[in-house]
């Protein structure tokens, strides 16, 4: 059976449609303002620092991952149940607020970006940033538009996701997160390796969309 129509249709498609997804090029933030991006970068730098174990969250481009996520359905909170009435309950009944993740970042960064000493968090030294993040986690910045504990937990969760998610989401650049833990990537058939018992694998690291150069910048 010949399918001339199909052949014509395929050659007529723009080349782009046949390419695997490419890593988004670095650019201006999509959601964050420059100030917000600086705050998040400064925080990620402490939540997942570069250290003797290797590169950290900034080298993995976690801030860009968070920016892209907040610009989309995850940031908007699509899919949540948001019907009223709105009431507070115990934490075990879950988050009852209808504020989106994107709004939480925007509101909390505005409320928290200036440290008590008057300096901007993004410009503070690592020790001062650590101290401030710890005070957020311990609940010392609550009320008056500030939800320090929730914001800290959100930042930390998103940082880990960005460090460890497939690089097509914009973080885990160069597979930095996966290299740290020795995750060898996404492979369709591990059956030949069932008796590998932890020996080093002579295999290139691959993500959902292929090897590292599959995520290369245009």
């Amino acid at each position, binding site marked *: 059976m010949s399918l001339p129509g199909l052949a014509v249709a395929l050659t007529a498609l723009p080349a782009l449609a046949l390419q695997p997804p490419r890593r988004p090029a670095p650019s201006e933030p999509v959601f964050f303002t420059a100030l917000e991006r600086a705050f998040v970068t400064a925080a990620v730098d*402490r*939540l*997942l*620092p570069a*250290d003797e*174990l*290797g590169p*950290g969250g900034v080298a993995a481009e976690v801030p860009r991952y968070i920016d892209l996520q907040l610009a989309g359905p*995850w940031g908007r909170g*699509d*899919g*949540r*149940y*948001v*019907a009223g*009435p709105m*009431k507070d*309950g115990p*934490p*075990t*009944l*879950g*988050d*009852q607020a*209808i504020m989106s993740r994107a709004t939480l970042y925007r509101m909390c960064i505005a409320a928290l970006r200036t440290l008590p000493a008057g300096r901007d968090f993004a410009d503070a030294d690592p020790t001062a940033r*650590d101290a401030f*993040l710890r005070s957020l*986690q311990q*609940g010392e910045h609550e009320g008056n538009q500030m939800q320090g*504990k929730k914001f800290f*937990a959100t930042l*930390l*969760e998103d940082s*880990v*996701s960005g460090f*460890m*998610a*497939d690089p097509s*989401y914009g973080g885990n650049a160069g597979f930095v*997160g*996966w290299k*740290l*833990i*020795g*995750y*060898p990537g*996404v*492979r*369709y*058939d*591990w*059956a030949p*390796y*069932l*008796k*590998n*018992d*932890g020996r080093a694998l002579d295999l290139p690291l691959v993500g*959902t*969309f292929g090897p590292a150069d599959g995520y290369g910048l245009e």
Partner: protein
Amino acid sequence: MATRKPAVDAVVCGFGLTGALVAEALTAQGLRVVALERGSMLRTATDFSPAIQMDELRFQQRHGLMVQPEQSTQTFRHEASGEALPMRDIGAWQIGTGVGGSAAHWAGQAFRLMPDEFRLRSHMIDRYGADIFPDTMTSQDYAVGYDELEPYYDRFEKLMGISGQAGNLRGTIIPGGNPLEGWRSEHYPNPPLARMKSTELFDKTAGSLGLHPYPCAAAHASRPYTNPLGVRMGRCTYCGFCSGYGCGNYSKSSPQTTIIPVVMQRDEFELRSRSVVTRVLIDSAGKHATGVEYVDVSGKTFMQPAEMVFVCSFTLANSHLLLVSGIGSPYDPATGQGVVGRNYAFQLWGAANIVMAGPGYDPWIGAGGLGQIIDDYDCDNFDHRAVPGQAFVGGGYIGLFQYGNQPIGSSSPGVGKDAVWGSALKKQMTNYQNTLQVQSMGGNQSYRDCYLSLDPTYKDPYGRPLLRVTYDFKDNDRRMSRFLVDQCQRIGEAMGGRLLNRVDRGGSFDTTQFQTTHNSGGAVASATPDKGVVNKFGQTWSTPNVFVYGASQFPQTPGRNPTITVGATTLLGLDGVVKTYIKSPGAMVPA
């Protein structure tokens, strides 16, 4: 005004596992069947391709195959006097949507229940006396026994291509299998999955402790397999993307890989996806269903007339549809009267996480059912009064699974004030290759004040009240959870591991922390109409042309995963429908 569709013999509400079984059984008899499914059509080739599914963020972390709360959720409260609030995010359980339902994204642990489980109340009273049951505990015997169900277990395992090792073949104990299991008429259709270093270690250690380890029966084909319907499955590749994902390799047993390809080709069958059944329609006498009302993706309302109505949604949605349709009497915890929503139970999953001295476990490799198990602490295989003053009803399997651990889920920093961050978090992440988990699937008893009802305040997108869950862990079950996790820890330390942390259910139920999706009850199958909604054939006592299938039939939650028993009880019910009901419609069990 609803548009009236041409009448059919049967309408199926929900096209997951039980709905697919209904459609297959009835179309094989030449009956015309329409299935209405809330979610989308999902096909292995186009929706479950490895290049789509092997994406932890999208599917496991962001619940790509699950129903979103804005479409369907529940309200929750811990006690009947409290005010329920909506579960606004996916949390404690993850319920699938789309064709295949939760049987498309399940892990694939394919357990039968043990014979004692079916007569839990009678057996425990015989052995320990009635005192072991607190007054408020409403756990009861199943409507069927193991011997009666065995042929249907066997049929279902062959349909699904289950991989496992028989331990008790018609009374003969087979080395390498589970010596404590109920008798089996035949071997599993496929041999067990491969073992790995982690499961070998568990096997050796448990054996040395005098326990009885065996390979978990798995819903992943260990070799190429063709099921009795002629549907072919491919050998599992141990890619590690099972729980939370659709299988792109035709290896994990699901409606897509075992039943649907056949049913879709039958002229008697029609699937309408993205169609939400809003209520079952009952005649004015209240004893006979005339069909269902549903809303399609464009928002139009239709009426589908049918001679038989099959309620085949997930456990929670089954009770919801019965309650909003006025089928059966709603349960009232104050009087103990009524049946719809009664005996709702969850599960008390627990674990001991242990750190081994070195790496070597290749945690990225695996399959959802690849594990070694012991049943020494389930059913009556142990003394429930072993710990003085701490007697309990219940139990569960204990095992070690090599699921395929993905990087985000393996890197959790913890929660709240104790969450780890900075270099300490990176160091903790590097335990990825030497952390093992010994887990327990603790059962859950039913209680007078744990039940499902309609919420007085919160509504779904169709204007119906949300389902309200009233539930908390009870002391009996907390004791069970602690006992099981003690055993997990003992085995894990004997394996040479250092305890990292324990997960046991000592406190109150937390809707935000994923535990399992194993919800039970609400539309219980019972021997008499005062103790449940349906008879053993899944036929409602109140409305004989309405049938309800799923774990909603379980009178309490067993100490293992439900799916194989869901399949077997559905096949038993359908056998009755085909042999008896369609020839002579009416109540199949006298009330």
